[in-house]
């Protein structure tokens, strides 16, 4: 770090590297990005782990997210309080889970949580409808939406309880060719 002010101690950086898929440089860059969002809020010095949260309204303005139809859900999923306020830890956590090197299992877990809009640990028809409307910007007619939701549910629901449990979801996603390449955000 040299003459620059230290943002993290070496131990902190090591710990972050152990806990995420990032290198030292990337973590520092993440901090830069995080600070960029709210320069008045986030201090440069993180050596004493200040408890600071950036509200979701600021997070979703990041170019990585601003076009993502699920941005609010992503931020909510990764925030500790569930409202989308992200501490730096959550922020790093989010990009670590979404980065290229994170394993399929981890990504599946978080994807499930993102698509589970009402957080009942199941993806039900309502969740599917919401997902579909976000994906297509409401361009489909209600009949089409219902048809697509029914079809997807039919395809993926193995135990026939007309909602997708995590195992259903995992089974479906594990065979998807595009999941890994699509479900990642580069920072």
């Amino acid at each position: 770090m040299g003459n620059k002010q230290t943002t993290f101690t070496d131990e902190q950086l090591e710990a972050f590297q152990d806990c995420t898929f990032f290198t030292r440089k990337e973590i520092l860059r993440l901090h830069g990005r995080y600070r960029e969002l709210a320069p008045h809020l986030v201090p440069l010095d993180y050596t004493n782990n200040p408890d600071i949260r950036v509200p979701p309204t600021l997070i979703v303005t990041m170019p990585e997210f601003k076009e993502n139809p699920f941005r609010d859900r992503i931020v909510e999923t990764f925030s500790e309080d569930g409202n989308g306020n992200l501490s730096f830890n959550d922020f790093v956590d989010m990009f670590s889970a979404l980065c290229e090197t994170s394993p399929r299992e981890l990504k599946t877990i978080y994807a499930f949580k993102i698509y589970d809009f009402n957080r009942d640990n199941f993806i039900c028809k309502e969740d599917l409808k919401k997902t579909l409307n976000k994906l297509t910007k409401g361009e489909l007619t209600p009949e089409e939406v219902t048809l697509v939701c029914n079809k997807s549910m039919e395809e993926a629901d193995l135990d026939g309880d007309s909602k997708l449990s995590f195992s259903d979801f995992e089974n479906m996603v594990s065979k998807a060719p595009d999941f890994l390449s699509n479900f990642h955000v580069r920072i």
Partner: protein
Amino acid sequence: MIILQPSNYNDAKCNVFCVFLGHHVDDGPQRRPNRRQGAGRGGAKGRGRGKKAASEDEDEDDEDEAPRGRRVANKKKPTKKRGGDEEDDSEDEAPKRKKKGAANRKRGGKAQESDEEDSDVGKGRKGKKGGGKKGGKEAEDTKDLNKWKSNQWLSYEKSLFLGESSGDLFGFLLLEEVEEKKKLIATIRNKPWRMKRRLLDLKEAQEFVDKFEGALGKGKGRKWFAYKVMMKKKWIKFQRDFENFRTACIPWERKIKDVESHFGSSVASYFIFLRWMYGMNLVLFGFTFGLVVIPEVLMGLPYGSIPRKTVPRAEQDTAQDYSVLMDFNGYCKYSVLFYGYYNDQRTIGLLKFRLPLSYLMVGIGTFGYSLMVVIRTMAKNADVGGGDGDESEFTFAWKMFTSWDYLIGNSETADNKYASITTSFKESIVDEQENQKDENIHLRRFLRVLANFFITCSLGGSGYLIYFVVKRSQEFANRTDLSWYEKNELEIIMSLLGLVCPPLFETIAELEDYHPRIALKWQLGRIFALFLGNLYTFLFALFDEVNTKVQQKEIITRYYANYTLLLNGTGATPPPMSPADVIRGPCWETAVGIEFVKLTVSDIQVSYLTILIGDFARAVIVRFLNYCWCWDLEAGFPSYGEFDISGNVLGLVFNQGMIWMGAFYAPGLVGINVLRLLSSMYYQCWAVMATNVPHERVFKASKSNNFYMGLLLLILFLSLLPVVYTIMTLPPSFDCGPFSGKAKMFDVIMETIDLDLPAFLGTLFSYAANPGLIIPAVLLMVLAIYYLNSVSEAYQNANMELKKKMQMPESKPTKTKPGTASKGVNLERDVALASPNPNGRGPVSRPPGPRGPAPMPGDGPGRGRGRGRGAPPR
């Protein structure tokens, strides 16, 4: 008294126990210490168990926040420990005692002979110390003592039953736990927990490992063990630093990311490929320049010293003309860039550098290295492949959950993506509603056949055109009054073909109406065929030329022979002659090299000009003329260009093929190529960002990365063939290049073996080159390939079987709940781990019981507990 009785009993037992263990039993203070010993051991065991149980609890705790988890663990530890010793030692004391124990154990290790007992004694002493300190306090409170002693009794009982092995057991448990913690440290990044909790857990685990890992070794091995542990830590640290350094060295990460967010991953895949190519060429460049060009420049004879390094008298007047230099004639031709410049001296300079050998080795090594890298990358890519996309059982679900590209960060791209997703949904709906339209199928098939017919025609046409042009250029070569067009006809025609044909193919491909991803592959394949055809026609024509030159060479050698005969006949010494005046043969290697360099350079020019005109000028016109035009230029006819992925990728692959082929005859070509790739990266990045618009139907280049690699591999093989052919069969020119004077190029190797290596190695090589040995070796290799192939097939079959078996239990209870339910709950727990969102929103307030079909015993409560806890602690 009631207290005494058990205590006496205790002592008796304890003595027995101690004797059993081979302890020194001295009478006085021994009572309490030994008690403590048992307590310590029991406690330790209890603690071990407690901790483990606590950590298990932590695992089960779904909505547990890190600090809370920690607190719970702390709370639980003492409770569990109470089973073993109900004493005053607080949580903080435990580590201290352990440390002391470890320290004491060292001393104990010297005193005792056997290693097994060692740890036990250590614990005993540890107990002694701890006990001695606390003795007074304990005696004061009889009630506590009472309780304590009865507990002691229990723990003694236990230790007695377990006998000697209890010490080992402790060590074993510790070892196990250390291993567990280590595993946790290694995999913590894969855990779906909150970062805060991960950080805390990590810290805890690291502290634990730091503290106890060193204590695990025994006896003499301990120091070594500690050393090993230390070195391992250092090694890990080093690895991480190295990894950090390595990622810092990867260039253009940001640039590619920018492109990716604007144009989606298919365009970015081109740039990633370009970067990969640059890396590979950099290595090739390092080899070629480090081992061939630079030694020649530094240690070889200077320019003008011998004929092959001098411009001939006839050419000297024009040798510096711009047009001549641009054709790579004149001074360019007689420079290190080309084969002909190199001398056939066996060794050069003070270092006795064997240049000809090094030249040949680098030529072959270039191919070897490229082959290795390409195949390795392919294997790696195939590994990442992951899910098998051929099962189409999840059409809608996949579209729903995996179609959004999270990388998109540009509103235009996003709009296109929305549109394409909507269309794809609509398409699937239509497909679903009416499965097939029969009348269309025939028409489509007809159109596809027609399209392929057209394309074959144009491929054949272009091949013939090139052959015709090459033939004509050979005629031209004998004339001197050539116009600029006639001189450059070949390059112009080839570039034009490369320019015209791909869009033509694309237009024809409209007939076929494929999905863009499939269309891209077809397009790639067709353009590839075009390029390949062109390249090979060019090569065959070139070989014709080479053959005529080889014949010419024979005439000149004959002339030389006569000349020397004449000289010898008259007995006069030859008059001193300037190297520029010496009659020389046609150096066909240099001629081939020049052809390749010219082709490469014209390729660079054409592709850069295409970008400048086709994209940049178009974009400028569309952008600025739009203000004063009768129709909307941006939305209407010319609009902005799209980035042509297939054309660019193939251009790159084709270019690389020429580099591979030409590098042997023109070592400078590799340098030119590196410059080209470098500039191309910046130039194309700029061009794509400034002038292009995202594709109308944004699609993913899924796995086509390996498709590019496959093309590259094919090109590599195809470019390997002519080079190896020339090396093995054609005689090298007699008066230029490092192999002049040899019958075949590879004679250099024979020469090295004969002259530089000891004699027995030479005989060894001659045996090895014996057909009697080579044929069995080849047979063996074929057998090995066959064997490995069948093994891999068997593995694949086994894989398929396993997959089927895995799917069976999933699909069997399709409509019955319990089977999947249990699995569901299990997995759900993992999900729940990751979902600490217990704030009162919607269904969270639901009671845990009825949710989820038949929760596993013991699992439900854990989850429920976590859920019921309410808001996370701050």
